[in-house]
Every structure is written in structure tokens, then in C-alpha cells.
């Protein structure tokens, strides 16, 4: 009875994502959902160059994800089943599509940064020679696994963010049964990715790293929880959260995983706590400045300006702080259309006229500089320059 249940899943499956469900998005509903699972990044040609240069430094492109996961029986089955969702508005469909088709635009930044910082830090003096053999392109195998794990966790939450509340569904979303099914698939695939992250973490055989990264998962949950509570359908724009709280929440949802991932990478190479803390700080400030940059896009006169922005994005929160709560409520009131709709363009003009946008730019640069400062502990190298270039790319404004 010993291995009664010890059958291992056969791993290789091919072409799972090319089953015809992930046709590039053509229908109009794609942009309708209020949460964008893949918020806009500074997608300038310059940004792509920064990234492709960085990928060369770490050895191979980071759009690897975990092939082991992607090719598993479980996700193959999910891919087949997700076909049933075509025609509904379940967010899982878009997450899956985006994952396949936009992988160039939504590059796996966390994994890349973990690899770059690993390389920039190099081997520590404390590390013995046996560890050295394990290095490829200046990065330990364990650090590459860690990079993969951070991506697994990130992706798991992209999927879990796209769960819908069954009682809040409208008839246009799709048949109830299909939406329930979509939830089921989303929970399972997210859980599957998380479970793989857990076993991957365990294999690193470093309890401190397990603790750090697990706590980052907790942070992520709390961050997403806050994020959800500001969804426009909740009329949350009336809540005055203040920029300090905003920063804390954004750190949880957008920074903790990368910060702790960077720190864990240092721990894996046996770097001391000081280096670990610098790596953490880089990850934290870089994420914040990245997020500020993407929040700013709709308010800049570039090609990404548009009228689609969240009411909890940095410029709005800062604007609210400047004008005061009452004036802000007045502005919201004036932008009210009939029904529960809001004229976002009008609101956008009001915000652009205020100081919120410049303040957000300043804040973005502030965190960018903080990130750069923390890189100074590493010796100059191509990897360090790449980390710097990432910061330059997100702190440059027209």
C-alpha cells in the first residue's frame, strides 16, 4: 500500500495554450472590466530596449514562467475547459489571453529584476566554493528558481484577482453556470500556481527565504484587498485615503513581492543583512516608482493618455489632498452624469489643472532616486546598469 497514491503526473503536454480559445481580443467587452489585470507599463520603445538589454545580461529571456507548470496536466485541462467561457465576460478569459498574447508587453518584470540584482550582487565572501559551481552567467540556480517562484506567485494573483462575485453578476456577463465555472477554474489554476510556488520554495532549503516569500504572499493578499475596496462600483472615490495610506497599500500590492524577492535572492547567495536590506529597498522603491509612472500615463500628453483611469490612482489621491475633501467632492459632483455615471474626461481636466500630477511626478522621481541610492552598495557592472536603466526609464517624463 506504500505508494498507493504516489503516481506522478506526466509532465509533458504540448501546445496547450494554442487551443483556439486565446484568439487575440476582438470583441468590445475586453476593456470593459474595471480592473485591468495588466496595468499599463511605460511601454515606450526605450522601455523595451532597457528590458531586452537586461534580458541579455541575465542569460535568457525572462518570459519563461515555469514551463513545468504550464506544461502540467492540470493547466492543460484548465486550458481546455476555459474554452467554455468564450462568449462570457469572465475575467479569467482575458487573463489567459493576455498571458499568451501580451507576454512581450507584460514582461515578467519581477523575475527579471530578481535575476539582475542577483547578478549585480555576485557571490558573497561568505559563500563557499562549492556554491560557485552552481553559477550560470553569474547567477545561482537557486536564484533562478526564486525568480521563477516570484513570477508564479505574481501570476497566481493575476488569476485570483479575476474572481467574480456571483450575486453581483448582471445578465450580460454570461450564463450563471458559466460564470461559476469560470470562478472554479480561476481558483484552481491560481491555487495550482501557488502550490507550485510553495513546493519550489521548499526546495530552496532555506527557511528564511521561505518565510520572506510567504510573507510577501500575505502582503499581496492584503494589498489586493485594499485595491478591491477602491473599485469604482463601490463609489470609493468618496473615501479620502491620503497619500501615506496609499503608499502603504501600493507597497503591499505592487512592491512587497519584488522587494522581498530581491532580499531573498541576496539571502540565497549568503550576503549579509546590510546587502539584503539594500536589495529590499531597491525592489520596494523601484516598484513604487514604476506604479506611479503607470498611474501617471493617462494624465500625460503622450500616446497613452486617455480618459480611463482609476479613482484611486496616485494623481487623483494627491489632487484630493491638495484641494481638500470638500472641493474634491464638489468636483466629483459636477462630473456626475445622469444615473450613476461619471464624466471621467471632465474630472481628468480638473485633476490636470491642479497640482496632483506634478506631485505624482515628483514622488515617482523621489522613489526612483531612493532605488538608485540603494544600488550603490553593488560594484559597477552591466547588471547594475540595467537595474539603473529600469529606474531611468520609469522616471523620465515628457
Amino acid at each position, binding site marked *: *500500500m*506504500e*505508494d*498507493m*497514491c*504516489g*503516481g*506522478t*503526473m*506526466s509532465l509533458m*503536454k504540448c501546445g496547450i495554450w494554442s487551443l483556439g480559445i486565446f484568439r487575440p481580443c476582438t470583441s468590445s467587452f475586453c476593456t470593459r472590466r474595471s480592473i485591468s489585470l495588466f496595468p499599463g507599463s511605460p511601454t515606450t520603445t526605450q522601455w523595451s530596449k532597457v528590458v531586452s538589454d537586461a534580458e541579455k545580461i541575465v542569460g535568457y529571456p525572462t518570459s519563461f514562467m515555469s514551463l513545468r507548470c504550464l506544461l502540467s*496536466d*492540470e493547466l*492543460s*485541462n484548465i486550458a*481546455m*475547459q476555459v474554452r467554455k467561457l468564450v462568449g462570457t465576460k469572465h475575467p479569467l478569459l482575458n487573463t489567459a489571453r493576455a498571458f499568451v498574447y501580451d507576454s512581450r508587453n507584460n514582461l515578467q518584470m519581477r523575475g527579471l529584476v530578481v535575476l539582475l540584482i542577483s547578478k549585480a550582487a555576485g557571490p558573497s565572501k561568505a559563500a563557499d566554493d562549492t556554491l560557485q559551481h552552481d553559477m550560470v552567467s553569474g547567477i545561482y540556480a537557486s536564484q533562478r528558481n526564486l525568480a521563477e517562484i516570484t513570477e508564479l506567485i505574481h501570476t497566481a*494573483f493575476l488569476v*485570483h484577482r479575476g*474572481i*467574480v*462575485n*456571483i*450575486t*453581483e453578476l448582471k445578465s450580460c456577463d454570461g450564463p450563471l453556470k458559466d460564470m*461559476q465555472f469560470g*470562478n*472554479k477554474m480561476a*481558483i*484552481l489554476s*491560481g*491555487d*495550482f500556481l*501557488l*502550490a*507550485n510556488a*510553495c*513546493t519550489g*520554495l*521548499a*526546495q530552496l*532549503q*532555506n*527557511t*528564511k527565504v*521561505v*518565510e520572506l516569500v*510567504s*510573507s510577501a*504572499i*500575505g502582503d499581496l*493578499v*492584503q494589498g*489586493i*484587498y*485594499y485595491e*478591491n475596496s477602491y473599485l469604482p462600483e463601490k463609489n470609493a472615490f468618496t473615501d479620502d485615503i491620503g497619500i501615506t495610506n496609499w503608499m502603504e497599500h501600493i507597497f503591499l500590492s505592487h512592491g512587497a513581492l519584488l522587494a522581498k524577492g530581491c532580499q531573498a535572492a541576496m539571502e540565497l547567495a549568503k550576503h549579509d543583512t546590510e546587502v539584503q536590506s539594500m536589495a529590499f529597498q531597491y525592489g520596494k522603491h523601484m516598484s513604487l516608482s514604476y506604479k506611479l509612472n503607470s498611474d501617471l500615463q493617462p494624465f500625460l500628453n503622450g500616446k497613452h493618455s486617455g480618459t480611463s483611469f482609476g479613482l484611486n490612482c496616485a494623481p487623483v489621491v494627491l489632487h484630493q489632498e491638495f484641494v481638500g475633501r470638500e472641493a474634491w467632492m464638489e468636483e466629483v459632483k459636477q462630473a456626475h452624469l445622469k444615473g450613476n455615471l461619471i464624466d471621467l474626461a471632465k474630472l481628468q481636466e480638473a485633476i490636470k489643472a491642479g497640482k496632483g500630477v506634478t506631485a505624482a511626478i515628483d514622488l515617482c522621481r523621489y522613489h526612483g532616486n531612493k532605488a538608485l541610492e540603494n544600488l550603490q552598495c553593488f560594484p559597477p557592472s552591466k547588471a547594475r546598469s540595467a537595474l539603473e536603466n529600469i529606474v531611468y526609464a520609469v522616471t523620465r517624463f515628457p
Partner: protein
Amino acid sequence: MMGWGWSWRLRCCGHHAASLAGIRGVHGGSGGGWAGAIGGRAAAAGKVHCSLLKPMFLRNSVSAHLCRPQSRLLHSSLVACCYSKTNSEAKYKDPFKLGSNDLKNLYEDIKKELFITTQELKEMCEYYFDGKGKALRPMLVVLMARACNIHHNNCRDMHPAQRSIAVIAEMIHTASLVHDDVIDGSNSRRGKKTVNQIWGERKAVLAGDYILSAASVALARVGNATVISVLSQVIEDLVRGEFLQLGSKENENERFAHYLEKTFKKTASLIANSCKAVSILACPDPKVHEIAYQYGKNIGIAFQLIDDVLDFTSCADQLGKPAAADLKLGLATGPVLFACQQFPELNALIMRRFSLAGDVERAWQYVRQSDGVHQTTYLAQRYCSEAIREISKLQPSPERDALIQLTETVLTRDK
């Protein structure tokens, strides 16, 4: 006559690894054999497999006794003897009493692991840690910890790390409950509304994720890389078990193996591996780790088999959730699979996952008319005997005896 049927079934379980390998082998390229999606290939694979097992299956009532010596339950009568002997020996104290001291502040300690700043998320995460659960897993864990400690160096004291495993096991279990309820769309559990029913699916999923991450942090703090690996395996098994539950096999024999594998992954793995974890913290002897694991695995499977029986025999009030819940979810558990041997009409219902109007009621009737409930209970008894056989290899101690006694509790519980 019934007994022969058993010997086949149990032998089938014994050969589980082999038959599983067979299933995997044939299914290798087909995507896991989900019913419906790839029916053709699964059916073909089923036939191959069936032809291997069917002859045995057909003759099991007539000549199974010939095969019996090969059965891994050759010892069954022996075990039964020793079981009844231990049973009659002395009146044990209530096994739950022996461990209760160690579990006094269990839920407070769990709540201490949940560092949450938002009130609502905190409420959701703490919702099931209200002290009203059976806390079976923590109980098994603390008893196993002490039993192993006594076995190792005759010292009953429990290490704080072992106590943490009890906390972690309950947290992992609860996290999976929260997600299962969303997946199954359940409205009630333990006599109260489910997390998804109160707060909605979006938040419920996050709460489950949070509990899991907190368990993982607590696990890391135990500071033992092997223990981390052992319990991480559980998390993976839980998900894989849930995936298994989505699919069903067309072939009867495969279906049973599939059911047992699912049962192991969804229920027994957590118990087996947390028992193993405390044994690792108790002593370095791999033999002891194996005993702990085997005990946990067997009692875990028995526990779930009885759970599946209760779905047919208990009323909703006792269960704290609606009865026949499994059927309503389209799941064919032990009692149905056994009933299907007597009433092949059930096959069609199983294959369509009781989805047509009246299916659930008809299946329920078939099960009640059949020996399904008895047979499943009997199977659970065999798993319990196996658990007893394993744990009896440890040095005698009140905790070891309580673990033996607990198998009885598992079998006779009514909720």
C-alpha cells in the same frame, strides 16, 4: 460472500500504485482523461485497462478466496484479532481528553499567526477558527508528537515546533475549506454560513490565500527544511486532489482507483504528512517517520470514507451542511461506486454527474437499497486496522493507545 468482494477491492487498493501507473501510461498523451472533453481516448484506454481487471472482478464472488493469499490483507484476520484484543484490554481515557491540554489555546495561537490590518479580512480569516470545529488534525498531530517522543527517548514532552505543526495543519485545512466552498458554491458549513456566502467569492478566495500564506510563514519559522518540504507537498496534493475531483473515469475499476487517489490527496495527505512532520521533529529514525506517515494516511482515508458515508446516512442538522451534498456536486463517492456494482443502472448517472432532474434522488435510492454504505464502512474499517497495525510498532504509551482509540472514533462518528 460480501467479504470476497472486499478482498478484491482491497487488493485493488493494494495494487493501486500499479494500476495508477497503468492509467497514466495509457493516458499519457490525452490530457488526463477528463470525462467529456476527450471521451474517445479515455474510453479506449479504459477498455485496455478493463480487460486486465475484469476477469478478476467477475470471479471475485466465486473464486476470490484462491487469490486471497496474494492479497495484501493476508494479515487481515491477524490484525482484526489484535484489534479486538487491544479493544478489550483496558478502557482508554477519552482520546480527545489526552490531547486536549496541548490544544487548549489552539485557536488563539492560530489567530496570533494572522497579522492582518484590515478588520474585515481579519474577520474572514478568523471565521472558521471559532473553536467549533472538530480539530481532529491538531489532535492527531499532538498525540503523534508525544507518542513519537516517548518512542524515541521515553520523554513525553512536546517540542514547541511540534505544537506549531498542529497549528499549521489546522490552518492549511481551513484555507482549503474556504477555497473548496467557493469552488463548490457551498452555502453552509459547520452549521453556519460559508465565507463566500457572507462576503462574496472575490474576498473569500483572498481570505483562503491569506490563511495559506500565514501557515506557510509559521511553517518557515519552525526552521526545519525537511518539515517545510513535507508540508509543502500537502499543499500541492490538495490542489491536485481538487483537480482529480473535476474529472471522472468511465471505467468502473479506474473510477475506484481515481476515487481513492482523490481521497488520499484531498484528505489523507495532510494528516499523513503532518504526522510525519512531528515524527521528524521527534527523532531521526526514518522507520518512525514511515510509521507516522502510514498511520496518518490510513486513518485519513478512513476518515474521508466515513465522511462520504455520512453524506448518505446523516441528516443535514447533524452535518452542519446539506445531506447528499456530494451527489448534488456530481461526485460519486464510495457508497455510490459500491452501489453501482449491484445496480449497474447507476453507471449512466455517474457518468453524467447526476446532472439530470431526479438523478440525485434516484442515486440516493439506489445507494440506500444497496450495500454501498456498509461496504464503504467496511473498507474504512480495514484502513483503520492498517493504521492500528502501523502505530502498534511504536513503544506503548497512553498517547499511542489514544491514537488507536481514535480510529474507533473516526469509524463511529455521526457528524
